[in-house]
């Protein structure tokens, strides 16, 4: 149940909360300010697309593999898009190797939801032969260094990797799928941006660090897309929010989302 055993000393906790009540944070940021975001793409030649993202000291790498696949029976005319996430044991002292625990499953599902619900990828155009063969896009993320807010770092890495991915063009030749060898960009329609906000003693902080997450009561992740829509959300951790705090979080997510979207576009060269 207690997924992590990251502990903050009482004296640091007191200092952190004391600073917050004055509108300041341990690392000097404003409450609604994210850490420095760095995105590098195309590091893994064997992947169809890849991206390394640093958000402060949180570091993740995403890789995209694209192949032909068989569509789900209930969506015969749509390609597959599957996002996975794993927190590697080298990411922090408390992480144990093994099958993904509930936190890792939540991470992967929330990031997947943001990408899926924004309709970032036009899966309707990823069909080779309806009901038989479709394009299958797998985007897997490995967390290399965990220093808080894995949700946003993972989401940015997935988005940047998908934006720079190239897929092989498949055609039907009789009953067989043939790879033409031609490489195409993915059909991208929208760019979703995830913004996570922590609630610490009823004070909201955007992009929490590991220390801040260790003292927070709850967090909320909201995804926004280009046209000013909110497209996905998830409250997590065993605390709560007032309805007013949630609306503040939505305002922050929309405002910060715009800046981060611009940064992602610049880093990936996709306007």
């Amino acid at each position, binding site marked *: 149940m207690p997924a992590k055993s990251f502990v903050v000393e009482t004296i640091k906790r007191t200092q952190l909360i004391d600073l917050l009540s004055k509108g300041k944070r341990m690392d000097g940021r404003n409450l609604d300010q994210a850490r420095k975001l760095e995105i590098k793409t195309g590091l893994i030649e064997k992947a169809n697309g890849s991206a390394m993202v640093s958000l402060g000291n949180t570091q993740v790498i995403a890789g995209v593999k694209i192949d032909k696949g068989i569509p789900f029976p209930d969506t015969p005319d749509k390609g597959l898009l599957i996002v996975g996430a794993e927190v590697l044991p080298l990411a922090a002292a408390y992480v144990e190797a093994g099958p993904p625990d*509930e936190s890792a*499953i*939540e991470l992967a*599902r929330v990031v997947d939801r943001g990408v899926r619900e924004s309709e970032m990828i036009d899966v309707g155009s990823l069909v080779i032969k309806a009901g038989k063969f479709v394009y299958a896009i797998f985007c897997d993320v490995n967390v290399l260094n965990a220093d808080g807010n894995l949700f946003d770092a993972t989401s940015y890495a997935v988005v940047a990797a998908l934006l720079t991915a190239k897929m092989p063009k498949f055609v039907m030749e009789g009953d067989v799928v043939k790879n033409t060898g031609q490489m195409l960009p993915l059909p991208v329609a929208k760019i979703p941006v995830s913004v996570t906000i922590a609630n610490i003693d009823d004070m909201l902080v955007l992009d929490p660090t590991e220390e801040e997450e260790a003292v927070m009561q709850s967090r909320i992740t909201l995804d926004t897309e280009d046209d000013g829509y*909110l*497209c996905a959300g998830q409250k997590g951790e065993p605390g709560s929010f007032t*309805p007013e705090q949630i*609306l503040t979080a939505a305002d922050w997510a929309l405002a910060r989302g715009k800046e981060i979207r611009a940064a992602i576009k610049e880093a990936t060269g996709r306007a």
Partner: protein
Amino acid sequence: MEEKRKLMDENGIRTDGRKWDELRPIRMEVGQLHNADGSAYIEFGKNKIVAAVYGPKEMHPKHLLLPERAVLKCRYHMAPFSVDERKNPAPSRREIEISKVIREAIQPALFLEDYPRTAIQIYVEVLQSDGGSRVAGITAASLALADAGINMRDMVVGCAVGKVDGKVVLDLNDTEDKEGSGDLPFAFMPNLNRVTLLQMDGLFTLDEFKQALGMARDGALKVYQMQREALLKRYFAGGVAEMSTTEEEAE
């Protein structure tokens, strides 16, 4: 998630005959399981869900016990026959995530510090699923916890809103959940005015999001009244009307 057919007619009536702000028929019953320390059954539209609470009991495995409070555990599980196509009974990734968010939605309401070194286990078994099963499950689990006599700050009550045919509507049914364009499960502690669960998929403008939150809250308050009545019926059967009027007068 495009919409395949119209989910609302020209008069704003939904596939099951409801208006935009109407809840499905709801029925709750408390304490129908004999062995559990607390239990509740809820019908929320076609959802049929049974919740049970065991505890405070000994914590296993021992190394995970907490010296200062109880550990809250939760399992949300769907019966293989609860959905159109048989569901594999093994816990899916979806069920693992929902178990986590339900636990986190309920934990703020409990005085876990009153039960150090113990475990409190919540089971939510979905016998039939009809859209909004996690929030109906939360409502039932909260009743089961009250029935088990666990010390609570408030009840937790769940209610979902969503978007069909471009409109924000209360309490999606299965069809609307699958074919509609957005879903926002929500859980709330009515007396403390705190949101304890919020998930969202589908496109909402900021205004729609605000409207959705307001509607979810109003819906949850209605469900809360029924939750309260279910508890009064269980523990003050016969004196229900008297109990509720005196309390309301006192307010």
